[in-house]
């Protein structure tokens, strides 16, 4: 049933044999030194042309016969009792086909869905919203983290404190660690609420056929949306079908069936017609989630030699009316310390609920920890990179520091004298980590047709990372055929099950299923070819577009010739993603270097260069992987310099729910980015892939924060580092 194989795992200079137990029908995991024909070579994404020409069909582009347009009325108040909702006038407006109200009796944030309508066109739907009469009774509110934590603060939930029970992690004795330190640094760091700003807003098109529901949804998880809708509407799972052909971004905010998807389905049921509900940009900012803010009190101690003796974090943050603001991840894993304590406390306030966002908690924690590391290094007169090397927790990162420092020119840049003029340059470095091994569960089907085409079918979705390309590359590699032969069908719950595209799970969870399916298909094809080639199937291999005899490659058949021998129409095989084996290391490392230039008179920071060095197990496609790292870095530049949700304390509303007042990195704000990958064979699954969407975003803002500190000589301990904060920091120096 199962077999033991010994794999050569690790990375350059650190290779070791690891014995793993794998199922019999599982292909041997790829290991160090594997020679690939397709995997690992930069490969343009297979659907690139469809995206560039606007032909790719997103949920927003779905148009069905008789389809209605929905719109949502949101609470303008941060906290109010909803006494009545009168839909009658809206219902009477010509062109309106359905109107519903939500079940809530209390609005707890400005932007909470109150009611919704469906009409023959979008403008009419908006007209109808204006006719809905809602009677609110305003209640006191709190939208500021400091205020929400105060004793006697307004309660977001009746008779409950806003301050939740803390999560504590500790080992050693922090007091002893601080006492043993030659230098101690203590400061408070603050990070803002960041919103996802997926370019395709949240939304769905819902269509009922009797008691069967089909939903096109802008979602990271078609099966999770399906399951949620089935539970919500008390339907058997097989009565709900969810489709996400193309997805315009998600970043963690598009798991499951959110209010707008349920609203679309409810409106469609009432109207007896398909309904499309896509949010407004304002609604997107207010109600689809965000990265919580934080106040992080950090204490670090180190001995004279630069070894950390204590790491302490006391963190508060708000997930709005929801939870999830913790930021301890980096404190618990980036650097060794014999004494460590983290305490994370979520605080409720009257703002939209947070949702997972690209490495939840990590960019916050990394900024606080890494800037504190630099401040302590300065006290100890240590080179900041050296200080990190001394305490580094991961051997792969040690190599990454070397690679990055050389590429970046750390030594030369450190030695360069500071300009005497107003434009000051600075450099910084920060560590990243992640831990996305992938999960079992996904199933894949692979079909070879008589004409030689191969179809990979799996119910995953492409959040923008190039899923179709990655899966096709793995299939082509396993089957020994060219990439163009493979066609990937994804994004439909009618296909075999897969997991959501989030938590950096897609590639490590789906590629092993596809590879296994291809291995099974290959066995069948080898059996077809064996009698023709006069060999045993076990003596054959699929390579270079042929099936050939391993020890005599001149005895071969083209892949197409083999396919022509398929009886009937096609040959199909299935594969599953099995649980992870014991592989090399469960964590993955990374580090980023940043160089900035600060206009010290205006307080304006420009990021000039970022060097990003990362590992992610087996990189399938370095080209799309590099795109992901660029994306993580640039989202980090925005987090460092521009992005923040601004809540007015008088009205309790977000004043910048647009794409101009909520500031995103634009083309002229893009630094030069140099991306390097470190190859690691990890052996946890048959492709050895680890996930990658998140780690690339973890260290950027931290590295930029450290670089600004280096440039101006004082730390800016709050993000984003806007001109007012930079100038204020400079003033404390003067």
């Amino acid at each position: 049933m199962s077999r033991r194989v010994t794999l050569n795992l690790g990375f350059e200079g650190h290779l070791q044999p690891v014995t793993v137990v794998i199922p019999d029908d599982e292909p041997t995991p790829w290991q160090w030194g594997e020679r690939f024909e397709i995997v690992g070579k930069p490969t343009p994404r297979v659907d690139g042309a469809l995206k560039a020409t606007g032909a790719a069909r997103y949920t927003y582009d779905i148009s069905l016969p008789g389809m209605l347009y929905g719109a949502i009325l949101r609470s303008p108040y941060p906290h109010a009792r909803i006494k009545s909702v009168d839909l009658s006038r809206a219902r009477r407006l010509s062109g309106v086909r359905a109107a519903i109200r939500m079940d809530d009796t209390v609005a707890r944030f400005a932007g909470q869905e109150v009611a919704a309508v469906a009409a023959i066109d979008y403008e009419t739907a908006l007209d109808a919203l204006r006719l809905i009469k809602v009677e609110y009774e305003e209640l006191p509110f709190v939208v500021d983290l400091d205020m929400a934590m105060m004793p006697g603060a307004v309660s977001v939930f009746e008779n409950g404190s806003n301050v939740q029970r803390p999560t504590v992690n500790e080992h050693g004795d922090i007091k002893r660690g601080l006492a043993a330190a030659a230098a101690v640094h203590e400061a408070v760091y603050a990070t803002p609420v960041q919103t996802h700003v997926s370019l395709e807003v949240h939304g769905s098109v819902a269509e009922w056929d009797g008691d069967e529901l089909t939903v096109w949804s802008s979602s990271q998880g078609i099966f999770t949306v399906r399951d949620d809708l089935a539970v919500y509407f008390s339907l058997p799972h097989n009565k709900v079908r969810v489709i996400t052909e193309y997805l315009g971004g998600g970043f963690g905010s598009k798991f499951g069936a959110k209010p707008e998807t349920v609203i679309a389905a409810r409106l469609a049921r009432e109207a007896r017609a398909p309904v499309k509900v896509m949010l407004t940009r304002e609604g997107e900012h207010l109600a689809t989630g965000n990265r919580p803010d934080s106040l992080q009190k950090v204490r670090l101690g180190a001995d004279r030699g630069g070894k950390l003796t204590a790491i302490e974090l006391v963190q508060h943050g708000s997930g709005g009316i929801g939870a999830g603001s913790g930021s301890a991840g980096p404190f618990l894993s980036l650097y060794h310390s014999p004494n460590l304590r983290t305490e994370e406390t979520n605080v409720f306030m009257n703002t939209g609920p947070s949702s997972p966002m690209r490495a939840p908690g990590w960019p916050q924690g990394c900024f606080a920890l890494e800037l504190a590391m630099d401040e302590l290094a300065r006290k100890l007169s240590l080179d900041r990179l050296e200080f990190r090397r001394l305490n580094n927790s991961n051997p792969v990162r040690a190599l990454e520091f070397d690679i990055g420092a050389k590429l970046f020119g750390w030594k030369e840049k450190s030695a360069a004298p500071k300009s005497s003029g107003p434009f000051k340059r600075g450099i910084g470095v920060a560590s990243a980590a992640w831990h996305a091994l992938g999960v079992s569960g996904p199933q894949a089907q692979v079909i070879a047709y008589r004409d030689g085409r191969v179809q990979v079918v799996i119910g995953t979705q492409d959040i923008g990372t190039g899923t179709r390309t990655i899966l096709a590359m793995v299939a082509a590699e396993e089957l020994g055929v060219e990439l163009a032969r493979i066609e990937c069908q994804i994004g439909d719950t009618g296909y075999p099950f897969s997991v959501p595209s989030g938590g950096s799970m897609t590639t490590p969870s789906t590629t092993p299923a596809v590879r296994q399916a291809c291995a099974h298909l290959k066995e069948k094809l080898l059996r077809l070819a064996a009698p023709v080639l006069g060999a045993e199937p076990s003596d054959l291999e699929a390579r270079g577009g042929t099936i050939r005899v391993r020890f005599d490659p001149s005895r071969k058949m083209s892949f197409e010739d083999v396919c022509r021998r398929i009886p009937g129409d096609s040959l199909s095989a299935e594969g599953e993603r099995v649980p992870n084996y014991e592989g090399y290391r469960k964590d993955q490392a990374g580090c980023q270097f940043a160089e900035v230039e600060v206009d010290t008179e205006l307080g304006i920071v420009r990021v000039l260069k970022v060097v990003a060095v990362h590992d992610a197990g087996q990189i399938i496609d370095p080209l799309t992987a590099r795109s992901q790292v660029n994306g993580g870095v640039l989202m980090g530049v925005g987090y460092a310099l521009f992005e923040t949700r601004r809540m007015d304390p008088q009205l309790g509303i977000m004043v910048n729910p647009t794409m101009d007042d909520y500031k995103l990195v634009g083309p002229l704000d893009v630094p030069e980015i140099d991306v390097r990958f470190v190859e690691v064979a990890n052996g946890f699954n048959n492709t050895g892939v680890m996930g990658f969407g998140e780690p690339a975003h973890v260290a950027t803002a931290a590295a930029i924060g450290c670089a600004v500190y280096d440039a101006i000589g004082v730390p800016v301990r709050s993000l984003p580092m806007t001109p007012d904060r930079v100038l204020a920091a400079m003033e404390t120096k003067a």
Partner: protein
Amino acid sequence: MNRFEVITPADLAHAARLLSGEGHVALAGGVDVIDLLKLDIIAPATLVNLKNLPELRGIESRAGGLRIGALTQLHEVAEHPLIREHYTAVADAAREAATPQIRNLATVGGNLLQRPRCWYFRHPDVHCLKKGGDRCYAPGGLNRYHAILGGGPSFIVHPSNLAPALIAFGASAKIVGPSGQRSVELEKFFTLPTVDPRRENNLEPGEVVVAVELPAPPAGAKSAYLEAREKQSFDWPLVAAAAMLVGAPGSHTVHDARIVLGAVAPIPWRSPDAEKEIIGHPLDAERARAAGEASVRGAHPLSDNAYKVAIAKVLVRRAILKAAGIEET
């Protein structure tokens, strides 16, 4: 957006008559009007389409100066050779405005008359002083981008980035209304909230800005326009500064100067104090610095925007030096 009709009048006089009526709003480039319509800040019954009126078009040389039709698009201003050569600050201001796509739609008239970018004003759920409500939310709220000069009772900043540069060259607005036409210096066209917090200029009902007239630039005039922005890509300025300098013949002495700031006050903010610091003196970095300091004399920053005072000082200094062609060391 409410439902409305669109009327295209045959001539200017008729346009003026239509615009005198309640619920009529002019439609030109449309960028700001569409924004306001989408936000339900305006809900006119009728849009009066001005694009058919020849008086509003074209850039022409006139009496040594230039007449820029109100419908002229920002990209035309940015690229026009005469403007680039003789009114450099104006061309630079146009080039810095918005995005390439918006510069291809937005007009000179629209840039001057656009409503403030204040996030309270632009928020559909906030009924602020500017919209006829009873208070300005900036002083007690989030005011990092608001006025440091000339504020009260409303604390918006004027959003036009062309206006400071145009005022630096003494430009006038040519206006046609139901009772005829008038010409008003742009400097006097914009009005403080003390006059009427609900508006930013003295355009009367039915009046149409037909053109902007730039007088001939003084001999030896040099100019510069600078913006300080958080983002280098599309962003509104924290502070803008336009400087126009006229050198005395044959010397380094500044014979005349105009210094106008943008994004610091509810109107484009000319600073005679800054001008005084440099007029009649040979220009050097120290003089320019003094002008920068003087430019924000009397500033009353709000809780979050004192940093704009610091930025304004620097930007005025830099604009003066840039106009003069002096490299800072």
